[in-house]
């Protein structure tokens, strides 16, 4: 049994991530407390909304410490979705400077596409795959995923596993060891999204098998 915790910290649509995992036959635990996160094998941090409010919610509930303990110290596989990925950065310039979880070396800044393309970047865009990542097995090059964001993660090329093009080339997915993140919404990206989530579940099961 793979136990996957979806962190519920009052930011956006947790239900659709749970629905998608349900569809894969993996019943997730929706966890709003540290105690519910600790027994899990892997953690998914979804999120829609503002960076500042999200960090505030994580700190107030003490979930930031639990997450750092479980993921960084104990090495549990982690998937951040959209805002959930951005929160891993050192800081964000959204609504003034806010520091993030600081697990990866990067910062979150407003999208500034060329040709005055509208921001938010909302809709289906093609994702260009970089170095092989466990998340993108069985996913074709230039597959479409659903994006909806106004800010983006600026980070080194060494941890960028996919990019997308929108008046410039921006980060679409990252991996730093067992810490994975995607800027798009796999739970809203139909078949490609389900494949990606299945890849994450397989990755979690593999790691669990190895450590036993």
């Amino acid at each position, binding site marked *: 049994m793979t136990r996957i915790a979806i962190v519920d910290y009052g930011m*956006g*649509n947790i*239900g*659709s991530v749970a*629905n*998608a995992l*349900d*569809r*894969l036959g993996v019943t997730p635990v929706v966890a709003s407390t540290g105690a519910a996160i600790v027994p899990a094998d892997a953690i998914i941090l979804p999120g*829609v*909304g*503002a960076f500042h409010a999200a960090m505030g919610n994580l700190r107030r509930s003490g979930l930031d410490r639990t997450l750092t303990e479980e993921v960084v110290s104990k090495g549990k596989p982690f998937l951040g979705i959209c805002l959930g990925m951005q929160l891993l950065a050192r800081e964000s310039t959204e609504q003034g400077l806010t520091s993030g979880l600081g697990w990866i070396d990067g910062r979150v800044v407003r999208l500034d596409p060329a040709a005055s*393309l*509208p921001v*938010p*970047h*909302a*809709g*289906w*865009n*093609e994702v260009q795959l970089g170095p092989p990542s466990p998340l993108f097995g069985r996913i074709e090059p230039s*597959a*479409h995923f*659903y*994006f*909806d*964001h*106004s800010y983006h993660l600026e980070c080194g090329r060494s941890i960028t596993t996919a990019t997308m*093009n*929108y008046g410039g080339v921006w980060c679409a997915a990252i991996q730093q060891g067992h810490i994975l993140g995607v800027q798009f*919404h796999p*739970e*809203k*990206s*139909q*078949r*490609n*999204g*389900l*494949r990606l989530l*299945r890849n994450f579940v397989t990755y979690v099961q593999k790691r669990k098998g190895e450590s036993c």
Partner: protein
Amino acid sequence: MLKPRLIGLVLVRDGLCVQSIGFKRFLPIGRPEIAVEFLNRWGIDEIAVLDLSATARGSACDAETVKRYSRLCQVPLSIGGGIRSVIDVKRIIQAGADKVVINSALAAEPEIVTRAAEHFGSQCVIASIDARRGPAGFSTWTRGGRQASGMAPAEWARRAVELGAGEILISSIDQDGSRAGYDLDLVRSVTQAVSAPVIACGGAGHPRDLAAAIAAGSAAVAVGNMLHYTEHSVIVLKRALEALAQPIRLDSYVTYRHSEVGPEGRLAKLSEEALDALRFRYIPEETI
């Protein structure tokens, strides 16, 4: 590149999915859940379920119904109709919707838009504007086209964006159900007024209508009536858009890329040679 979105409209009246003509006549289709399920399976880009009888009834979609739609829908889901308070918005989002569509409340209680946007981000609020063409230009109507707001749609859209709306859904009451195409003047008047994404709605009858609305600046096109009654309607429509050189996301198992699209916007019959050469091949469903 970012593809324009094809939004499947599921119009609901007294619990039944309907086709709407001029906001006045309604043809029953069946259970809304079935429509949501099929649109999702055929590769729609987004689904909006709008309850046309909700404002008159005085209540928005309940959480259980939203949950049922949400379970069938792996694309962004918008829910509209009868939303009058932030509590309604919260309930709908927590039940699994990604966006709410606000129309009549824009006139009655505009602060809902602001408070919902503060809470969930402006990407979660679609302001819906119903407009009529008149001798003195376009006018905006609420309560299902029954109450005049006294403002032009462009002005109404600017105000909605200032209040915090992230997208504008602009519907033409005159074109609704006409299959004569979107009101492009109306679409342009709004796309020129706001920088937020605009969704054109009302009147689509041919794939070229959708391409025209995209050329007029809309980021997404909403289609309702046209998607009912035809097998693979979404895929065929997307294939026809591709044939018109309109970029669109088409990555379903079936694509009809081997078929020609006829002048009426439907798939043309394959040639005799092509039919003779056809072989049936069993394609097992992918287990993800």
